[in-house]
């Protein structure tokens, strides 16, 4: 049995209004780790705020807003995390995140047998303690293209 567990991965796409045309620029910076930490904490708080016995659907974090920007978040059941950072005037981008997962991720990573679907960055991570990012070129390229074509991207 392999010791690697389910892939938990962070795909960071930043498109703040100040940096027109620059997407995926924060994928390699340390801010992505900070963002991961914030999201992890918020997620665990939000799941505790609901009574799982009585509620049919567990709580899910979708977005949160800070002073100058809003963070949109979607996590697949396989622990893939899709994150978009936008201006605060942008309201709901769940459908965009779902599109990234159900179309672009599936097409470029899952159906490409040469592209890994587990995103381990270092080998000393234990099982289910994975953090990595989707580094498939086509995926990044096409998400850039897709996001720039949206009406919310100005």
């Amino acid at each position, binding site marked *: 049995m*392999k010791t690697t*567990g*389910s*892939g*938990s991965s962070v795909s960071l796409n930043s498109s703040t209004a100040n940096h027109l045309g620059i997407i995926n620029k924060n994928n390699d910076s340390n801010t992505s*780790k900070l963002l*991961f*930490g914030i999201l*992890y904490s918020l997620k665990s708080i939000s799941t505790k705020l609901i009574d*799982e016995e009585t509620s*049919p*659907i*567990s709580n899910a974090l979708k977005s949160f807003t800070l002073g100058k920007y809003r963070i949109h978040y979607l996590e*697949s*059941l*396989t*622990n893939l995390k899709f994150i978009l950072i936008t201006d605060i005037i942008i309201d709901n981008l769940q459908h965009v995140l779902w599109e990234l*997962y*159900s*179309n672009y*991720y*599936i097409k470029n990573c*899952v*159906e490409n*047998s040469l592209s890994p*679907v*587990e995103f381990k960055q*270092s080998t*000393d*991570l*234990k099982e*289910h*303690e*994975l*953090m990595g990012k989707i580094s498939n070129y086509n995926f990044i390229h096409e998400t850039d293209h897709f996001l720039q074509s949206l009406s919310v991207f100005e």
Partner: protein
Amino acid sequence: MSKSSKYNGDDIWKNNVEKINSELFTLTYGSVVAQLCRDFNNNYHEVNNQLDKMGYNIGLRLIEEFLAKTGVRRCQTFRETSEIISKIGFKIFLNIVPTIENWSSDNKTCSLILPEPNPLTEFVELPITTDSKISKELWYSQILCGVLRGALQMVQLDVDVNFVKDVLRGDDRTEIRLKLNKVLKDEIPAGED
């Protein structure tokens, strides 16, 4: 009402999945198994292992396609999970709906009964005359166990999957046993503090 009724396996199977000729599928799988038997000199335990490993790697990817096509939400109980596996998972990928029975009292173990004909074993006969071991040791459809194990692991369910009966071996039905070991926790990655 069961949860799987919210999602319609029929519709997804009809409109939303790519299909191939089932005979081509059956024969291709048959040649894979036959080749493995040759490669491992009829060591059927090893063939089972290899099929399981192949299935596992398929499962890791298949689950993403499954989630993207169905939009299924997280199941609250293992009973729900088994319903989804049977009525949606098997339906959209193999167009069969196995029945679920033999629940253990703690709701962690159950059996999937594959309906006949099993799409993997149509036209298949084990060559008992030349090799008597084969019907005792080879689990011909073992790849399905690997697929289930891989797919469920990706949604944080650690499950043991194995065959207990196979019509090919002369049993009365084809039965896969599922055993939930634990629900894996989402943990903070090490060294990210």
